[in-house]
């Protein structure tokens, strides 16, 4: 087989590019942990993921919150059991748990809103920009998404939960942008005359719109990955009739 004209350049490029990938000093420990079957190290193959899944199953999210909290505790214990030292070696892999193995100051987050006013019941396509300056990708045991945004006020404090599945969610090195839409609606609802707690009566199977007023957009995290940014004030206006 005759050499192709670009073979030489291709070999040089591959050799040079390969040098950019290095091995972290604790890689062997990670392999052993994976081999021991610690579930947090495995990728979930068939678990649903993404904000779309979350949006479609929102009604399920809050009822599952209590169970998710239990799972979160278990996952935190798993991550601790992996023996992460908290060092931040270049190219190393970090797993976030209740106590991140990196300095939260090296991971900043910014919430971007396209507007500061929204109609009750409407949705706003917000974005969360995470800047990971730790020098390594951060892996978090979670399900669907790391972040959610929700509106809260002095009198309304949303109960945000996550669906139950086990995935390893990765925050890449550098800036990553996550679309995190939120709605000016309650996050949960139930049948008529619920008679318990803060459950609101569903309207056409969906949570009802929030009453008009002054709210704050608050960031919720499935695990403590970043220091929470300051809430952003948002005005919810009444639904236009007709």
């Amino acid at each position, binding site marked *: 087989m005759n050499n192709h004209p670009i073979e030489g350049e291709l070999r040089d490029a591959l050799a040079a590019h390969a040098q950019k990938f290095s091995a972290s000093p604790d890689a062997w420990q990670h392999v052993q942990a994976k081999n021991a079957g610690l579930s947090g190290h495995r*990728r979930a193959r068939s678990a649903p993921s993404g904000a779309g899944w979350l949006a479609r199953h929102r009604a399920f999210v809050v009822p599952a919150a209590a169970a998710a909290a239990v799972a979160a505790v278990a996952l935190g214990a798993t991550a601790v059991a992996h023996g992460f030292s908290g060092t931040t070696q270049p190219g190393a892999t970090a797993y976030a748990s209740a106590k991140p193995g990196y300095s939260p100051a090296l991971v900043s987050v910014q919430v971007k809103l396209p507007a500061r006013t929204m109609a009750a019941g409407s949705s706003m396509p917000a974005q969360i920009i995470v800047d990971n300056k730790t020098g390594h990708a951060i892996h978090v045991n979670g399900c669907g998404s790391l972040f959610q945004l929700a509106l809260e006020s002095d009198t309304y404090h949303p109960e945000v939960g996550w669906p139950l599945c086990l995935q390893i969610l990765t925050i890449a090195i550098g800036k990553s942008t996550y679309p995190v839409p939120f709605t000016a609606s309650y996050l949960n609802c139930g049948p008529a005359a619920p008679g318990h707690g803060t459950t609101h009566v569903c309207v056409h199977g969906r949570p009802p719109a929030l009453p008009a007023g002054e709210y704050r957009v608050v960031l919720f995290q499935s695990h403590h990955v970043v220091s929470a940014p300051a809430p952003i004030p948002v005005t919810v206006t009444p639904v236009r009739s007709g």
Partner: protein
Amino acid sequence: MTSQQASAPFSPAADDMAAVFRARYLEMVRLAGLLGADDPEDIAQEAFARLMRKGALDADPAPYLRAIVCNLTRNRHRHLRVIREKIPRAVAEPSSEQAAIVREDHAEVIAALAALPARRREAIVLRFWLDLSEREIATTMGISPGTVKSQLSRGLAALARALEAKA
């Protein structure tokens, strides 16, 4: 390594496994990286974990490890593609690693390689980075040597076209 050692079954006792890890881990990380994995170390670690679970092996576990790295990376790409289809606006900004790729000397070649279909990219990397024969590539990828030849030929042609277009 003698031929007698080469034909003996590989028993992944802890010390042996550690030796294989030391000898092959970086290669597997780099293979995953060249195949475009977003987290090459995670792929390589999973490959070694599967090797440990597999038990007795042939003398050289490298072909098995390479095959696992290729499969895992391909699956990861597929998974990410599905997520991006479901979340159209996701991850618009390049990571700092991607930015570094753009700046490097061989950026055009690497970018053209990244645009190839996964199987073609695997064949190219295995041939021109690891210098594997067509038969070894066929074993790694689980395809026939004829298909390897075809993938290499088409891959090189596509790379040449892409580089000419940018020249």
